[in-house]
């Protein structure tokens, strides 16, 4: 008999199993320890053709007890400069926002969090966010400014971070 585990835990185990069985290129993710399924570590490869290319970035995900009804939180532990990533590494992306709190409705429901989204979809969205920053809702104002006004400098910093991520 399967041990008694919650819906959230079952669902997380299932996603973990799927990621192990059919890994997606450039993405590795799994629970950090065996006794807490609600904390994951992920590794993202910088998308090819972007300034993040060749970078290997680490991030952590914290899942709520009512997952998949509420989204996880994602935070990069590697240094990474990006207009939509806070200085502390927290990722600001529509897929991690619950459908409830968007009074301006500028993010469509499809892009936002819902129980049908998954870890894999989040990581793929973050990859495309790395490729195409959204300058309309900057989380890191300095990075957004640099990205807009001095792209060479921005790219230079990111390239240094890419090199650092490989150590």
């Amino acid at each position, binding site marked *: 008999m399967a*041990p008694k585990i919650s819906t959230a835990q079952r669902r997380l185990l299932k996603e973990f199993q799927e990621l192990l069985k059919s890994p997606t290129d450039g993405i590795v993710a799994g629970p950090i320890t065996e006794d807490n399924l609600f904390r994951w570590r992920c590794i993202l*490869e910088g998308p090819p053709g972007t300034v993040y290319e060749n970078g290997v970035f680490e991030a952590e995900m914290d899942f709520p*007890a009512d997952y998949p009804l509420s989204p996880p939180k994602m935070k990069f532990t590697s240094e990474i400069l990006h207009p939509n990533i806070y200085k502390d590494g927290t990722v600001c992306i529509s897929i991690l926002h619950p459908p409830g709190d968007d009074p301006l409705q500028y993010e469509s429901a499809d892009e936002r969090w819902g129980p049908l989204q998954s870890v894999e979809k989040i990581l793929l969205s973050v990859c495309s966010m790395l490729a195409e920053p959204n300058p309309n809702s900057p989380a890191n104002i300095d990075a957004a400014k640099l990205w807009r006004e001095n792209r060479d400098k921005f790219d230079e910093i990111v390239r240094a971070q890419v090199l650092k991520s490989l150590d």
Partner: protein
Amino acid sequence: MATFTDPLDSITDPSDWADSTFPNLSKLDSLLRCHICKDFLKAPVLTSCDHIFCSVCIRRSLESDKKCPLCHEETYESKLRKVLLLDEISTWFTRNRPELLDKHRPTANNTPEPVAALEPEKPAAPLRYESRKKRAAEDPLVECPVCSTFMSADELQTSHIDSCLANKRARPSPSRPVISSFFKKERTPQTQPEFVKKKTKITNLDPTISTNKLKEKLNYWNLPTGGTRYQMETRMKEFISMYNANLDSVNPVDDRVLINRLMKWEGTYSLSNTAGDTAEDGAQWRRRYRKEYDELIKQARANMNRINTKLDSTD
């Protein structure tokens, strides 16, 4: 390590059929799953936009967002309709899945023709207890109109009905009562037991309810009244979802079983909130994913070298 891999093994996936002799079953396997929990449908319900989820999953989801998670159309709990037939199909599949999977496992030295296991047994073979038992699991059982014993249609027509009519006292062979009494317990398909029909769904919790009223409500349903206001509210909400979902099941359980499940749910629910792992766990994680990590870095370095050499050659 065992504690980690064991629950992982208990999680089923449509891809389990990939190596079987009938890989197409993965389609059925995935069709019978709920989009929210990714597990087999339990007490499935149909939304007003024609989508199907486990009753408890969609009720929990509608609690925070009154939209269908699939099509984002507005949906209300009151509009959910149970689909008992699908509940029975899903239950049947879940129960028989391990055996089905086992039967379709390719044997090591003898590759069977695909679908062979699905073909009916040779009709000429004499009916022995074993094969009858197997049939009982696969064929729908029919009731003898004379003695009300359940058996396969085949058996009823070929031998039983004659002997039964000739001698109304004819009783099933000694091995049969076990099976027939077991199946007699089953209700006619797609009906719920009487006790459920008398029950009505609990209306959703009014968020402005006073704490005293909330306690009264919890007391009424024999639920614990301990913890903070938030904990009581969460407990009540989850109980309402469980209770209402139970009424959508073809095999509903007693309220006491529900309360038991609720308490277990609360136990696992609070577990997740315990923080506490950092550096050491990180090291553990890195060890586990060493291979993947190294692979990624190797690829990245290779790409970089390629680009560098390209740049060099163009210089």
